[in-house]
């Protein structure tokens, strides 16, 4: 099967259809939804996939309705949205910094959000909602500071990563200081939050995330053509008619918003933002940022990881971040082995 096809519409319009990329996106979406159904059925009160689907369609009994609609569905939706946001945010950062390691974890956004959350937990002993707000504020502030400090007649990818590392070091130190100053109960709460967890998430977290994604995902996708040009270098993109700085500002702002709000909802879940775009790119084998595939991959990864953490350690013993960390390690090892076998590194 040819992976690229030109589709011609009547009236002289034509566009390129990448069949392989499309297949990958559909496959990943199906995987994410299937994992979600299985995850809804997992817990102290197990349900079969058929029961879950019937309840979602509104035909379950009262007990099933309560468990599915009030307890487990919002958690899974938060997982899907957080995974999608992290996947997209990671893809944007990697593309803008032209560096496969330029993920929000490396740039210090996760650390910044953590600082905000830790301040609320340790200094004010705030509620879960206040912690989320603190994390959001911390993440946004850190993103703003990094962008301003990296600005010098434009933002250069390499400088962005370096400034991000500097900011990240300072914020990490602040986090360590806050942890040493807290009492042990707050510290335990902070560590669970810092690992990234989906436990106890309800509809209050779903709606803001959903609204944000509904605005930002189309906005970002509308700029994906410009982003693809920018991967060839600023000068080439400029010559091709892309308003480089403006596009970069819009995309960076979106990436920061996506990452910060995902972190506010679930904590800094490690490695999803780093691995989802890379895995997506390897599956589609298409050049360019692969934004849609990264979104689906992020959602599928996070929900699957949450299911693994529930199955492997029992309900809510260990948060999802532990599993994504270990999965990230396995992914990198796999990358090492396959790339070596292919003789590329």
């Amino acid at each position, binding site marked *: 099967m040819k992976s690229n096809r030109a589709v011609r519409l009547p009236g002289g319009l034509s566009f390129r259809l990448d069949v392989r990329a499309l297949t990958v996106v559909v496959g990943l979406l199906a995987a994410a939804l299937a994992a979600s159904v299985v995850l809804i059925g997992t817990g102290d009160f197990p349900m079969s996939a058929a029961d879950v689907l019937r309840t979602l369609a509104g035909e379950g009994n009262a007990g099933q309705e309560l468990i599915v609609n009030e307890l487990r569905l919002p958690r899974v939706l938060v997982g899907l949205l957080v995974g999608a946001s992290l996947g997209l945010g990671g893809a944007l950062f990697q593309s803008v910094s032209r560096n496969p390691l330029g993920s929000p974890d490396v740039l210090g956004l996760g650390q910044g959000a953590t600082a905000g959350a830790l301040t609320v937990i340790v200094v004010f002993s705030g509620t879960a909602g206040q912690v989320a707000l603190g994390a959001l504020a911390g993440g946004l502030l850190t993103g703003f500071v990094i962008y301003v400090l990296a600005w010098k007649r434009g933002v250069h990818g390499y400088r962005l990563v370096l400034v991000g590392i500097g900011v990240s070091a300072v914020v990490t130190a602040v986090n360590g200081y806050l942890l040493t100053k807290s009492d042990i109960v707050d510290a335990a709460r902070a560590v669970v939050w810092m690992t990234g967890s989906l436990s106890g998430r309800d509809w209050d977290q779903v709606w803001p995330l959903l609204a944000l994604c509904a605005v930002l995902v189309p906005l970002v996708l509308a700029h994906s053509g410009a982003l693809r040009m920018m991967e060839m270098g600023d000068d080439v993109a400029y010559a091709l008619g892309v308003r480089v700085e403006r596009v970069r500002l819009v995309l960076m702002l979106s990436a920061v918003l996506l990452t910060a709000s995902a972190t506010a909802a679930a904590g800094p879940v490690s490695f999803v933002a780093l691995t989802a775009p890379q895995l997506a790119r390897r599956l589609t084998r298409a050049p360019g940022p692969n934004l849609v595939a990264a979104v689906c991959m992020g959602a599928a990864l996070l929900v699957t990881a949450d299911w693994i953490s529930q199955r492997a350690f029992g309900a809510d013993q260990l948060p999802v971040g532990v599993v994504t960390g270990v999965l990230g390690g396995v992914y990198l090892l796999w990358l090492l082995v396959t790339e070596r076998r292919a003789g590329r*590194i």
Partner: protein
Amino acid sequence: MRVLGLLVSAGVLVLVALASIAVGAKELSLGEVWHGLFGASGTYGDVVVADRLSRTVLGLLAGAALGLAGAVLQALTRNPLADPGLLGINAGASAAVVTAITFFGVTSLSGYVWFAFLGAAAIGALVWFLGGSRGATPVRLVLAGMAISAALFGYLQAIMILDDAALGRMRFWTVGSLASGSDAAVKQVVPFLLAGSLLALALARPLNAVAMGDDTAKALGANLNRTRGLSMLAATVLCGAATAACGPIMFVGLMVPHVVRSFTGPDLRWILPYAAVLSPVLLLGADVLGRVVARPAEVQVGIVTAILGGPVFIFLVRRRRTAQL
């Protein structure tokens, strides 16, 4: 010019070391420091000097070790962003310490040292093996290091969530502090730090050849595999020993070689000595400052280094095109 700079830096280092002995909860005059160092007769001041001396020695050697390890790793991986954490050494040490606390009930700081050092060494060896041992390339080493770190940090966090006692100790250990500089702990790691430093300094010329790219280096007659193996060994010993004694102090190993490269250029024969002198200036200076700002308590050196070093690093990144490798 570069010789003069090195002498001036060494002079600054001596001053900072003296300040590190003089400053603290009990202030000493320079005269008292002198008396304690060279004519100790058991006065109160002499006891304080002896106590702070081992901490200062640890700061000097660990600082030099971190700077050297960072410079060697950046040259080895040809990546200016490489730091000792990248090859999994910090993760190995942290995982070993948390294991020691949770499963072996070790509670004293000097008890951690051997666990941390063994953990760092084991992970260093594992990364070297996974990276392809004799066929190792920079990308393979970095990937292997990141993979191992990721898995180990997952383990670390899982333990900290399940075991409150481990959390209580690890949160102090992971920020990095020189306060563990008791005589016993320092004596355990000093031989490793010295040997590693000498090895790193001796690697300057072969690493210069490696920096030109594999093909050129081979054409020049450099033995790539031996250089890479010895560099990994030096970095693991240096960073493992420093981490074992002080906890994972981030950022010194990343930042100091960066700063040094901006005025020495890419020649490692100058970068390594400068890094060995300027890193302890940063580390000891931060330690002194940490004792002053929150008197009579202290802020751990790992925190102060990052808070001081971060802005300096960002300033340098902004001011000029950072010297590429």
